[in-house]
């Protein structure tokens, strides 16, 4: 049902774009409505789980949660894009259509019950992202980002397809259901394990885990801020949704713990490297790119632990991470000036005197990213650490906390500039209804999920079980 709605929405958007010149005013609000409607529909129908397209897609349960996350993030991103795109000089109607399509792709990924569907969803999403990254085709930075993203993304796709081929060959089927049921017998087949590993590597690229993270800083820096916000949240969540689907096969059947080790290692690498390198970044978008790498690391802890708690933890983490990051990128987009100026941390000096609201909000999001209780970010980490310790991965949890100590430094550095330093540049910040409402909604969610994590967690736990 939600897939049809989005699909119809895309068609309608295309028609609007073609038929009227006012499409730029209509499309954003249309998209917001579309996304919000789908998000709410998904949340309401969490408990109704059924299968579509002869076992290809599953509706409800985990996928409903993911669908809600995708749609909700998209809605917020669209809100904050309205005014930003004018500034960014890329005020095209297809922007919204691309977002809608990519959301459809994500939804397919998250609901997939067959590796084919995973691939289809992934490609739909990725191709839209390639285009979104380069949406401002006049700008060299956007060109470079999209080219890098495209080449490396396609490279990764090559691995994924090859992996799928090997899995298919050794299992004789692409149904995930089948994989789950017969995992133990398959796992003695070296080709199967090899295929699965290659497949996982491809997705490790998508979630930006070290050492497959190299594209992230450049692409995040070069694309439009709102697009970065979208990719780093919904895009990452979509890739994780695939891991979680596949993982129910890998872990619940006592597989050889090779994958556990694999995840543990890339998680440790990502956490440490992301945190460490972020320290020396002055460009805020680039810094958040590295932060996103380290957060991917935290989430992978949950994959390594692989129990119910940690899976619920990852989903929770993804949801709150989406709110936080969208909020943070919205603030950045609000402050950003023409020609991608003012994304350097120095421009944030004395922000509190220019705009107390934005200063408070960026601090809130930074503290949340740093995982300071009682903000939502803390609970995400708490959950994955909890899962890790339960799975006897205490060392990983310790690596995690140590790297979050390091990461605190660059998060609070933003607060230092916003509050403790005096302004050096003079500029005025235009208020934007769309962006500000996106920020407020994200902030509210960050606080609410912090004080009452059970609201969200309750839904997730029921869905996971």
């Amino acid at each position, binding site marked *: 049902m939600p897939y049809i709605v989005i699909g119809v929405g895309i068609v309608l958007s295309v028609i609007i774009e073609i038929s009227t010149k006012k499409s730029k005013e209509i499309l954003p609000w249309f998209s917001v409505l579309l996304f919000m409607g789908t998000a709410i529909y998904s949340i309401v129908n969490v408990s109704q789980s059924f299968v579509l397209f002869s076992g290809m897609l599953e509706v409800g349960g985990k996928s409903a949660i993911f669908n809600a996350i995708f749609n909700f993030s998209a809605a917020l991103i669209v809100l904050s894009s309205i005014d930003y795109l004018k500034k960014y000089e890329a005020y095209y109607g297809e922007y919204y259509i691309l977002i809608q399509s990519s959301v459809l792709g994500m939804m397919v990924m998250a609901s997939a019950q067959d590796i084919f569907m995973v691939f289809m969803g992934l490609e739909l999403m990725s191709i839209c992202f390639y285009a979104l990254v380069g949406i401002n085709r006049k700008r060299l930075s956007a060109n470079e980002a999209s*080219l*890098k993203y495209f*080449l*490396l993304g396609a*490279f*990764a796709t090559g*691995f994924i397809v090859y992996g799928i081929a090997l899995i298919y060959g050794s299992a004789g089927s692409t149904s995930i259901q089948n994989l789950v049921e017969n995992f133990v017998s398959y796992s003695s087949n*070296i080709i199967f*394990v*090899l295929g699965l*590993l*290659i497949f996982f*590597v491809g997705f*490790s*690229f998508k979630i930006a885990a*070290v*050492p*497959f993270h*190299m*594209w992230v*800083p*450049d692409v995040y820096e070069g694309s439009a801020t709102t697009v970065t916000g979208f990719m780093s949240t919904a895009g990452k969540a979509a890739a994780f949704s695939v891991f979680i689907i596949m993982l129910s096969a890998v872990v619940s059947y006592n597989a*050889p713990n*090779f994958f556990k*080790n*694999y995840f543990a290692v890339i998680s440790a690498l990502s956490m440490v*490297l992301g945190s*460490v*390198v*972020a*320290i*020396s*970044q002055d460009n805020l978008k680039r810094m958040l790119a590295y932060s996103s790498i380290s957060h991917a690391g935290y989430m992978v802890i949950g994959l390594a632990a692989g129990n119910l708690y940690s899976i619920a933890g990852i989903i929770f983490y993804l949801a709150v991470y989406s709110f936080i990051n969208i909020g943070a990128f919205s603030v950045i987009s609000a402050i950003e000036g023409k020609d991608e100026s003012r994304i350097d941390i120095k421009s944030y000096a004395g922000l509190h005197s220019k705009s107390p609201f934005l200063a408070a909000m960026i601090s809130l999001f930074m503290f949340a990213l740093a995982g300071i209780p009682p903000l939502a970010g803390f609970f995400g980490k708490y959950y994955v650490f909890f899962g890790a310790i339960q799975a006897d991965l205490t060392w990983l949890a310790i690596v995690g906390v140590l790297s979050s100590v*390091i990461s605190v*430094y660059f998060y609070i550095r933003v607060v230092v500039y916003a509050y403790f330093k005096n302004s050096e540049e003079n500029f005025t910040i235009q208020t934007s209804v769309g962006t500000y409402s996106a920020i407020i909604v994200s902030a509210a969610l960050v606080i609410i999920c912090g004080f009452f994590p059970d609201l969200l967690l309750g839904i997730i736990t029921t869905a996971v079980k």
Partner: protein
Amino acid sequence: MINLIYITVLLPLIGFLINGLFGRKIKNAFPGSSGEKIIGTIGSATVGISFLIVVGAFFQTISLPVEQRSNTVELFTWLSVGGLNVKFAYLVDQLSLTMALIVTGVGFLIHVYSIGYMHGDKSFWRFFAYLNLFIFAMMNLILGDNFIVLFLGWEGVGLCSYLLIGFWYDRNFEKGTTSQAAKKAFVVNRIGDFGFLLGMFLIYQTFDSLNFTEVLSKAATFPVAEATFGLIAIFLFIGAIGKSAQIPLFVWLPDAMAGPTPVSALIHAATMVTAGVYMVSRTSIIFASAPAVMMIVAVVGLLTAIMAASIGLVQNDIKKVLAYSTVSQLGYMFLAAGMGAFSASIFHVMTHAFFKALLFLAAGSVIHGMHEEQNIQKYGGLKKYMPRTYLTFFIATLAIAGVPGLSGFFSKDEILWYSYANGSFIFWLIGMLTAMMTAFYMFRLLSLTFYGKERFDHHHVHPHESPSVMTVPLIVLAFFSLVGGYVGLPKVFVGESGNLIDSWLKPIYAPAMNKLALYGSHSHFEEILLMAASVALALSAIYFALHVYTKKPEIAENLSVKFKGLYNLLLNKYFIDEAYEAAVVQPIQKGSEKLLWKVADVVLIDGAVNGLAKLIDKFSAGIRKIQTGATHAYAVMMLTGIALALLWLILSL
């Protein structure tokens, strides 16, 4: 009256609060000297009334049978934790009453004297507030029925001493300032307190109580190792050394002369410095259980006595001479205590309080009349200008020099006798030598001040007698210096019970005496012989001093040139201050600054912390270079990752 004893503690406190909080207002409200009078009256009256109460309690106690002479007045619980139960309670017995009489009595006189001495001082009210606070603390010290209340007073008097030494906080004193002297006093005292604290801890560990009655009775009966007793005694004695200015912690007392002279009289001569003697005497049973420590006490006392006396021989500051004399006399008291003659030491505390307070007050009167000049070389022939001061000073000098019939003679003689009887001839000899020196330097002081040529500048200095508010206390003290000794007449003359003070205090020391039991058999003849010898030697020293300093000052001059090294050594107090400065103070200070702070803290610890941060920062700056911007490199990185993963997978199969 015994039950009202807490009033004697409270009254000075009230006086302190009134003068301390409202003194400035009183002074401003009543212009001229009437404000001073009110403040002075409040200050003196509180102590005076306390004195009367103590006297009442004294007579009440005397009227009781001997067994009931020890009474406790409880106020409220102070510290009650686990097995520790410390009350604010006062112990009224023979020893504390004796001390209380001295403190309030002499204290009252000095208060009165101060009204005159401090006249015109801008902080008149503050002075009286501090004095009252001192009396409050001192009363706690001597009346407290447990170690902690004693310690409260112990530290409290230290504080008052600190405040009063630094009373003229903007004046210079010798090479430094008064406040440096004050700080020195407090810190050196604290070193002693450190020992005292450890003593208390060990007592609590051993006897599970800090209450005098309990601890002392347990100490008399409990089977406790002698080593433990020894350790306790050593610790307590360290406390006493600090407070009573014995070797090696005596250095603060001469510097304490930076305070106003009444302070020197009250705190640094008559009362506070004897607190150590009181404490040893109070815990006599513990000391008596550790004979080795007793010997240490005696030796320390003896050495202090002779050392301080030798320094006193050459000092030129009138108060300095008296200060070293005090140190020396305190040494006598410890000698007595160490010899087991606790009552003799308390007796000497009493007589010393009279004559030394008198000496200081009289000296104060001289200083007052000489416009704050303290160098005795610039005095001379003052007898005719200040007759009353001279007379009283003369009496006190006789007393301290051990001229028979005066108070000092009896107490000093008793100590010397016990140092022979319970100790050895060497003890007596050194004690005797000290007594000779004492007689000498006191008469040197007397001669240079009151006799001989007038060496002061007549144009600027107009010596005059002090007002009667100052001289009347002098006269009263002179009276007691004359007759105070008769409560402790030698047993050789008056028999076992004729020594009033000894038989009064005896019950206190009974347990200690039981343990000691070291009275050797010495004949009366020996005692009288030694007494005669000491009198003869003292008198000859007096004669020599008078002769040299009134008639032939050049002899002194020649001697000082002839024995230049010795003279300088003595003049500079054996360079002990300098030695401490170089051996203790400087190393600690420099070490703390150069080593602990600037190296250990800033470089090592903080350096490690910041270094770690810097390391991560460097690491970050280095590792970010991996991100070259070249798409190829990214692909290579990915492939490396895949290759490693595959390799690992294959290896793990």
